[in-house]
C-alpha cells in the first residue's frame, strides 16, 4: 500500500482535508461574502467531506491501526495527543459520511439564504473538530477538539438570525454547552490533580501503578464530570435537555448533522477515554466502584426518557430529537458493557449502531428538511398523505423509520439487535436490566415511528396542499441515505468486522 511512503502527519489527512476545505470556504467567504453560488459552495463542502471519507476508508482498509501482526500498520501517532487507529478512522468515516450528506442536502435548503459560504465553512470546521475528536487521545486535545466542534455548532444552530426558533435553540444549546464544558474542564482538572497527567496512556499508567492512591474520591468526581461532558455531547441524560429544543429550532440539516455526527464524535471520545485512561479494575481499586455502573444507569435513564418523551410528540422534528436521545441511550450500552469480557462485542455493536444511525437518522432529519423546504408544516397531521404526492421520498422515510425502530429488512435491525445480543451476552444483572429496558423502549419506539409512517402512508392527504417540487440535492441525499440503509442489511459484514476489530484493538 502506498500509505507506507506517506509522511506520518498525513495520517491525519481525513481531518486535515476537512480543515483545508473549511479554510478554502473561509477565503471564498472573505472574498465575496454575499455570493450565492450554491453549487460551488455546496460542491466544495461535499467534495471535501467525500475526499476525507475516501482517504479514511483507504487508510482503514490499508490496515492503519490494525495490530501489525495481522499485517496491519499499527496505529500512527503523528503528534503527541493525536492518534490514528481503527477507532479513529471508523468515526472519521462516520463524520465524513454525515457531513457529505448534510452538505449535499443544504444545497437546496439554503436557497435564498444570505451568508452561504460561512454556513458551509462552519459545517466543515465543526466536522474537522469531530474528526479530531476521533483521533484525540489526550485530555487536552480532546477538550480542544470538542470545543472546535462545539463553537461552530452553536453558530450553526442559530444561523437563521431572524428565526426566533433558531435563535432560541442556539441560545439554549450554547448556554447548556458552556455549562457542560465548564464542568468538563473541571473534571479534567480533577483528573489531572489526581494523576498528574492529561495524556490518556499516562493516566492509565499512573492509576495502575497506584500513583494516585489517596486521591480516589478526587479522581472519581473527576471521572463523573468527564462523563458529564460526554453526556452533553452525546445528548444523554442528564445533559440532554438542550437536545430537543436545539434540534427542533435548528435548521433541519444542522439537526441532522448534530444528532448524527456530533453524537458519534461524543461517543468516540468517551470510548477513547474510558478504554485507555481508566482501566476498570485498577480504577475500581482506587475510586471504590466500577464506573460502568454510571453508564448502566445513564443508558437506562436516557433511552427511557428519550423514547417516552418521543411517544406523544406532535412535532415530527421534536419526535426525532427525542428519538435521537433514545438512541444515545442504546449506544451507551456499549460503554456500560466495557467492564466485562466480551465488552468489545457490545462496544462494536454500539459503533455499528452509530454508523447506521449516521445514515438513517440523518436521512430522517433531511426528510424533515425537505418538508420544511416544501413548507408543509411541522406536525404529524401536516405530513398526512404525503406519499400520494412524493412517493419516493416517503418510501425513503418509511425505510428510515422502520430502520430506526430496528425492524428488518433494514440495517437498523442489525445494530439494534447486536446491541441487544451484546447486552445479553454479558449476562450480568445490570446488563439484563439494560436489555429489559431496551425491550420496553423499542416497543414504544415502534409505536411512535409507525405513527409517522401512518401519517404519510395511511392517512388521507390534506386537501389544501400545493404541488411539491423535487429539490435535487435533498432528494439525492435522502435517497442515498435510504439506499445505504437498505443495502447495509446485506453488506453488514465488513462494518461489523471493522467495528468489532476497532473495539477489540481499543480494549486491548
Amino acid at each position: 500500500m502506498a500509505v507506507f511512503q506517506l509522511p506520518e502527519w498525513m495520517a491525519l489527512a481525513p481531518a486535515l482535508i476537512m480543515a483545508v476545505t473549511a479554510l478554502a470556504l473561509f477565503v471564498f467567504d472573505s472574498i465575496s461574502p454575499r455570493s450565492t453560488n450554491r453549487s460551488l459552495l455546496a460542491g466544495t463542502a461535499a467534495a471535501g467531506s467525500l475526499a476525507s471519507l475516501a482517504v479514511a476508508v483507504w487508510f482503514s482498509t490499508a490496515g492503519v491501526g490494525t495490530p501489525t501482526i495481522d499485517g496491519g500498520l499499527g496505529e500512527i501517532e503523528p503528534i503527541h495527543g493525536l492518534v490514528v487507529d481503527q477507532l479513529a478512522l471508523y468515526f472519521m468515516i462516520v463524520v465524513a459520511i454525515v457531513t457529505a450528506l448534510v452538505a449535499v442536502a443544504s444545497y437546496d435548503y439554503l436557497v435564498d439564504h444570505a451568508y452561504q459560504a460561512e454556513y458551509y465553512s462552519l459545517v466543515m470546521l465543526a466536522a474537522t473538530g469531530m474528526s479530531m475528536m476521533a483521533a484525540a487521545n489526550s485530555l487536552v486535545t480532546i477538550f480542544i477538539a470538542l470545543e472546535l466542534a462545539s463553537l461552530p455548532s452553536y453558530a450553526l444552530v442559530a444561523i437563521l438570525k431572524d428565526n426566533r426558533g433558531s435563535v432560541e435553540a442556539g441560545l439554549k444549546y450554547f448556554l447548556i454547552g458552556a455549562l457542560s464544558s465548564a464542568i468538563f474542564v473541571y473534571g479534567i482538572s480533577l483528573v489531572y490533580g489526581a494523576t498528574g497527567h492529561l495524556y490518556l496512556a499516562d493516566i492509565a499508567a499512573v492509576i495502575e501503578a497506584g500513583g494516585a492512591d489517596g486521591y480516589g474520591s478526587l479522581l472519581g468526581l473527576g471521572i463523573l464530570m468527564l462523563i458529564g461532558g460526554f453526556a452533553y455531547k452525546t445528548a444523554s441524560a442528564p445533559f440532554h435537555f438542550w437536545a430537543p429544543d436545539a434540534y427542533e429550532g435548528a435548521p433541519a440539516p444542522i439537526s441532522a448533522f448534530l444528532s448524527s455526527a456530533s453524537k458519534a464524535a461524543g461517543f468516540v471520545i468517551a470510548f477513547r477515554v474510558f478504554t485507555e485512561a481508566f482501566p476498570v479494575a485498577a480504577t475500581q481499586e482506587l475510586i471504590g466502584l466500577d464506573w460502568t455502573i454510571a453508564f448502566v444507569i445513564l443508558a437506562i435513564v436516557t433511552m427511557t426518557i428519550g423514547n417516552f418523551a418521543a411517544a406523544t410528540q406532535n412535532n415530527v422534528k421534536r419526535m426525532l430529537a427525542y428519538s435521537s436521545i433514545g438512541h444515545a441511550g442504546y449506544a451507551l450500552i456499549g460503554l456500560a458493557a466495557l467492564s466485562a469480557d466480551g465488552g468489545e462485542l457490545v462496544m462494536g455493536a454500539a459503533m455499528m449502531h452509530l454508523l447506521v444511525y449516521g445514515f438513517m437518522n440523518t436521512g430522517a432529519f433531511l426528510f424533515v428538511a425537505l418538508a420544511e423546504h416544501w413548507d408543509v408544516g411541522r406536525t404529524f397531521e401536516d405530513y398526512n398523505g404525503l406519499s400520494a404526492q412524493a412517493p419516493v421520498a416517503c418510501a425513503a422515510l418509511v425505510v428510515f423509520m422502520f430502520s430506526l425502530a430496528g425492524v428488518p429488512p433494514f440495517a437498523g435491525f442489525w445494530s439494534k439487535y447486536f446491541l441487544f445480543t451484546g447486552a445479553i451476552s454479558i449476562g450480568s444483572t445490570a446488563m439484563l436490566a439494560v436489555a429489559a429496558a431496551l425491550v420496553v423502549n423499542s416497543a414504544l419506539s415502534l409505536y411512535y415511528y409507525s405513527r409517522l409512517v401512518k401519517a404519510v402512508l395511511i392517512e388521507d392527504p390534506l386537501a389544501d396542499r400545493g404541488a411539491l417540487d423535487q429539490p435535487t440535492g435533498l432528494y439525492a441525499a435522502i435517497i442515498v441515505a435510504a439506499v445505504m440503509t437498505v443495502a447495509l442489511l446485506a453488506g453488514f459484514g465488513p462494518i461489523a468486522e471493522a467495528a468489532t476489530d476497532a473495539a477489540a484493538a481499543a480494549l486491548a
Partner: protein
Amino acid sequence: MAGTGIFSYAPAIALFPLVAFVVALVFGKYMPKKGAIAGIFATAGSLVLSLAMLAAVAGGEVYHETIYEWTSGAVASEVGADGIEFTFGILIDPLSALMLVIVSLVAVLVHVFSLGYMNAEGETGLPRYYAELGLFTFSMLAFVFADNLLMAFMFFELVGLCSYLLIGFWFRTKSAPSAAKKAFLVTRFGDYFFLIGVVAIAATFGTVAFAGDDSFVTAAETAIDDGTQLFGFDAQTWVTITGLLVLGGVIGKSAQFPLHTWLPDAMEGPTTVSALIHAATMVAAGVYLVARMFGYYALSPTALAIIAFVGGFTALFAATMGVVKDDIKQVLAYSTISQYGYMMLGLGVGGYVAGVFHLMNHAFFKALLFLGAGAVIILMHHEQDMWKMGGLKDKAPVTYYTFLAGALALAGIIPFSGFWSKDEILYDALIVGLEEPVILAAYAMGLVAVFFTGFYTFRMVFLTFHGEPRSEAAEDPHPVGWAVKVPLITLGVLALVAGIANLAPVYKLTGIELTFLESWLDGEYGAVEGLTYSAYGELLAYEAGTIGTEQQTVLIAAGVSLLLAFSGAGVAWKLYNVPEPSRHVTKLGGAYTVLRSNYYQDEFQVWLAEGVTQPIARAADRFDRTVIDGTVNGVSSISLFGSNRVKRLQTGIVTNYAALLVAGFIGLLLVLGLYGGWF
C-alpha cells in the same frame, strides 16, 4: 382393486351414486328430469350389484379386502401393536350384503318416487336435490360395507352432512334450516363420543378393523382373557367404556333417548328424504353399527344391558308421544324412534338376528309408510294435518291399501312382517329378562309400547283414510302417477311377505326350518369367521330362562304382544273410525299437554343451547373484551400517560434545564458515591 370374481366390482356399489352426485351437480340443470335419471340408473346399478353380492354370499363366498391405505404411522398402543394403518376396505358378509340390498332397494324406489313427488310438483333446485341424494346413497353404502371403525365413522359423518343438506332443502323457509341445524348438532353431539370411542379403540388396540384376526374385537377378547390393564382400567371396564362411547354416536344417529329430538324436526325435509334417510337407512346406521361390531358389545354385559334398556325405554317413550300428534309425518317420525328402540332392545338382549330382522322389515314398511304419507300429501295438496284429511280410502285405493299394509306391519299384526320381527325381539327380551331384572324392565316397556303402537298407527290410518273428508282438499285429491304407485306397491308386497325370512316362532313350535335369516346370519351359507350369530352367542354372558316349556314361552310372548297390538288398534277403531272423529283431548287430561310438548325435551335442549351455552359465551366475550384486551390496551395507555408526564420535564426555560442538569448530576454523584462509599 384386488378381488375375486364379482366382488372386484364391490366398490362400484358405492361409486355409482357418487358419479350420479357429480353428474347431477354439474349437468343436472341441462338434463331431462334434472338429474333424476342419473340417480335412478346409479342406484339401480348399485341394487343389481348388491343383489349379485347377496347371491355370491349365498354361494358361500365372503369378501374382505383393503382397497386403499389412507394413512399409517406409529402408535404406542396398549396391547403392543406399534404400527397402525388407517385404510378404506370393503367387508361383504351376510350382514352387510343384506344391508346393501336394503339400502340400494329403498334408494331406487325413493328416486323413482321423487319423480312423482318432486319433479311433478315443479320444485326448484332439483339438481341439488338429486345430487345430495346421490351423495347420501354413496356415503350410506360405503358406510355399510366399511370394514373398519374409522371408515365407518367417516361415512357416518358424511351421511350426517347429507341429512343436514336434505333436511334444509327448502332453505328459503325459516323452519327447514333450523331443523337441519338441529339435526346435525344433536347427532354431532353423539358423534363427539363416537369419535372419542374410535380414537380410544385405535389407541388401545392399534387396529380399527371389524373382522379378521387383527380386529379390535379379537384384540379386546384376548386383552380380557389376559386380564390386561388398559389406560388404568381392567380390560372389561375399558371395553365397556369405549363401547359406550361409540354408542353415543349410535344414540345420536338412531335417534334414541335422549338424542331423539332432532328426528321429528327433520320432517321439515321432503317426505322422500324422510322415507329414505330418516326412516329406512341413515337412522338405521346406528343400529347397524351396533350389529356390525356386535362382537365387541357382546364382550360387555353392562354395555348390552344399557343398550337394551335405552332401547326399551325409547320404544315406549316415543310411542306415547306419537299418540297425540296431528301431523301425519310427525306420527311416523315418533314411530320410527320407537321402532329403532325395539331394534336396540333386540340387540341389547343378544337378539342379534331379531334386531337385524326388525331392521330389515322396518326399513321396508317404514319407507312404505313415509312414501304413502308422501302420496297422501300429494293428494292433499301439501296438507299434512290429519284432521284436515279423511275419507281418502275410496279416492286413492292404491295408496290406502299399501299404506294399510305398512300400518299392519308397523302395528305388528300377524302375519305382516313387523309382527314376526317385533315378536322375536320381545321373545328374546323376555327369556333373558326372566334372569335379568333390568332386561325384564326393558321388556316390559317394550311390551307396553306395543299397545301404543297399535293405537297411534290406526289412529293415523282412520283419521287419514276413513270417515268424511274434513277439507275441500280432501274432497278432490290431486291424482298421483305411476312413479308414486310403483314404489308403494313394491314396498307393500314386501311389508306383507318379508316376515317369511325368519319365522322363528313357527320353527320353535313346529320345528319347520323357516329361519332363513338366522342361518344366513349364522354363516351357514358363508360368513367372515367370528362375525356369526353363534360366535356372538358364545361371547354372550346372558342366561336364558323360560316360562314352562320353550313352546309355552313362545306362545305367551306372541300372544301377549298380539293381544296388546289388537287392543291398541281396537281403541283407535272405537275412537276414530267414525265419520266425524273428535280429538278426545280430555280423556288424557294433564298428560295430554305433556305429550303434546314431547315431555319438554325440546324445551330442555333449547334451554341448554340458549339458556346455558349462549350466556356463557357472552360472558366469555365480555371477559375477553374487558379484562384480557383491557389489560393489553391498559398497558399502552399507561405508557402514553407516562410519556405525557416525562416530556413535561422539558419546561422550555433554559435555567430549569441547568437546574435539572445539575440536579441529575448530583443525583448520579450521590448514587455512585453511596455505591462506592466515598462519603
